C-alpha cells in the first residue's frame, strides 16, 4: 500500500467514524462496513440509496441499517467478499492498533507485523487476505500474552461491557415511547406525522393537529416539586389518550407540550376533540394530597389543518401559533389556526 493509499484509507475511515457519530449509528462492524463503502464510493447504488435517505430526512434505524447491509453486502460474489473482508481487516487493524497502544511496551515485533500487513494490497484475493489477517492475529496474541494477565482480563471485560452498552444504546436510540408518560416520543411523532400526512396527500382526506400545553407548569414544579410535575404529565397523557379515537396519535412533543395527530378530521371536529380533552381534565382532576393544595390543572390547545403541498413544518408552526394565541387569550381554552403565523 502506497503512502497515498494509506492516507486515503485513513480519510475514508475518519469520515466513516464521523458519519456514524453524527447519525448516532451504533459502530457495529456491519454499520461500519456500510458507511465505509459509502465514503469509499465503491458502490454507486449504495451511495445513491443512502443519499436518497439523507435528502428525505429518513431515519437510519435498526431496520434501515439491516436492510442496507443485507441488500448490498450479502451477495456471495467473490469480489464483494474480498471487499467485505478488507473492510473487516481494517476494523481488526484499528482494534489491534488500539490494543498495542494500551499495552504500551513490547510492541516492536508487533509493529513489524503491522508493517507487513500495510505493505500488501487490500484488494488482493481473499486467500491472501486471510493469511495476512491470521498472521496479525497470531502476533497480537503473542503480544497480549506478554502483557499483564490483569490487563488482558480488563480488556475482555471492557469488550463485553462495550457490547452491552451498544445494545442498550440501540434500544434507546430506536425507542418510540416516552419513558415518563408512556405515549409516543418526539422522534416517533416526526416519523408518524410524515406517514399520515403522506397518506392524506394521496387520499385528499382532512388531517388535523393539536398542540396541548399545560398552563403554568413551571409553577407546579416550583411549588410541589418535579415528582409532582411528573405525576401531572402522566395524568394529562392518560386523559388525552382516553379522550381521542383509536386512529388518533398522541405524542409527548417536548417538556409539558403534547401533540395529537387526527386523521380524517376537519377543523370543526378537531376543535371538538380539543374541547373534549380540556373538559375531561376539568371533570376528572388529579387527586393529590398536597400542601399547599394544588389548584386544578388546565391546558391551552392550538389546532390547525394540514394543507397538502405546504411544508409539514409550516403546519406544525401554525398549530403552535394557535396554541400561543390560546395562551395569550387567557389560557384554559382552545384556539383554531386563523393564519396568525
Amino acid at each position, binding site marked *: 500500500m502506497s503512502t497515498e493509499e494509506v492516507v486515503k484509507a485513513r480519510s475514508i475511515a475518519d469520515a466513516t467514524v464521523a458519519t456514524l457519530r453524527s447519525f448516532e449509528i451504533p459502530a457495529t462492524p456491519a454499520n461500519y462496513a456500510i458507511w465505509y463503502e459509502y465514503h469509499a464510493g465503491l458502490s454507486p447504488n449504495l451511495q445513491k440509496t443512502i443519499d436518497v435517505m439523507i435528502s428525505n430526512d429518513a431515519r437510519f434505524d435498526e431496520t434501515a441499517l439491516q436492510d442496507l447491509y443485507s*441488500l448490498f453486502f450479502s451477495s456471495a460474489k467473490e469480489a464483494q467478499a474480498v471487499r467485505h473482508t478488507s473492510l473487516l481487516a481494517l476494523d481488526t487493524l484499528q482494534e489491534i492498533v488500539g490494543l498495542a497502544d494500551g499495552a504500551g511496551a513490547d510492541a516492536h515485533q508487533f509493529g513489524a507485523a503491522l508493517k507487513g500487513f500495510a505493505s500488501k494490497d487490500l484488494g488482493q484475493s481473499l486467500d491472501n487476505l486471510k493469511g495476512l489477517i491470521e498472521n496479525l492475529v497470531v502476533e497480537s496474541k503473542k503480544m497480549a500474552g506478554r502483557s499483564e494477565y490483569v490487563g488482558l482480563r480488563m480488556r475482555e471485560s471492557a469488550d463485553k461491557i462495550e457490547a452491552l452498552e451498544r445494545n442498550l444504546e440501540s434500544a434507546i436510540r430506536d425507542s418510540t415511547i416516552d419513558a415518563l408518560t408512556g405515549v409516543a416520543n418526539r422522534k416517533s411523532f416526526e416519523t408518524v406525522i410524515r406517514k399520515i400526512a403522506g397518506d392524506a396527500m394521496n387520499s385528499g382526506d382532512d388531517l388535523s393537529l393539536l398542540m396541548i400545553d399545560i398552563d403554568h407548569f413551571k409553577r407546579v414544579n416550583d411549588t410541589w416539586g418535579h415528582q409532582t410535575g411528573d405525576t401531572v404529565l402522566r395524568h394529562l397523557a392518560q386523559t388525552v389518550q382516553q379522550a381521542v379515537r383509536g386512529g388518533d396519535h398522541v405524542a409527548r412533543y417536548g417538556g409539558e407540550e403534547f401533540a395529537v395527530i387526527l386523521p380524517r378530521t376537519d377543523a370543526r371536529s378537531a376543535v371538538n376533540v380539543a374541547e373534549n380533552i380540556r373538559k375531561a381534565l376539568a371533570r376528572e382532576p388529579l387527586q393529590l394530597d398536597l400542601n399547599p393544595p394544588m389548584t386544578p390543572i388546565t391546558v391551552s390547545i392550538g389546532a390547525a389543518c394540514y394543507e397538502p403541498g405546504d411544508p409539514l413544518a409550516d403546519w406544525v408552526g401554525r398549530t403552535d401559533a394557535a396554541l400561543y394565541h390560546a395562551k395569550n387569550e387567557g389560557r384554559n381554552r382552545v384556539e383554531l389556526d386563523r393564519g396568525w403565523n
Partner: protein
Amino acid sequence: MQKMRAETVWNSIEGGTSESVVSNVIPRLCLITDDSAPVRRIARKILTGLGFEVDEAEHGQVALDKCQVRMPNMILLDWNMPVMDGLEFLVALRHSEGGKVPTVIFCTTETDVEHIQKAIECGADDYLMKPFDRETLTATLAGVTPRA
C-alpha cells in the same frame, strides 16, 4: 435559492445561451404519473410555477402510451397504482425506444430501503418521499442532472 437553481438547471439545456429570450426556450415537459388526483393537482401547481409544461397520467399504462406519443423530459412517478405500477412502468420505459431520455423521480409514500434500492437499480434518477411540498420537490429537481 433552490427554486432559482432548479429553474436554471432545467431551463438552460435546450434553450441554448443565457441570453435566449423566453419564446426561444422550449418548455420542459413533465409527466406526472400518479393515481391520486390531489397529488397530481399539487404537483402540477408547483411544476407549472417552476416553468414546466405539465401532463398527467393516472397509472403506468397511460404514462407509457403518452411517452410513445411524446417523450417527456421528466417523469414524477408514484409507486402504487392500478393497472401498471410505477416500477413496472419504469422497467418498460427504460427498455423502450428513447426511454432513457426522461429523468425519472419516484414520488411515493414507500420509505423503506428496499423500495429505494429497487427504484435506483431499475433506473430511477431520484426518489422523493410523500408528502412533498414546493420546497422538497424544488430541492429534488435542483439535485438531479437532466439526462437530455
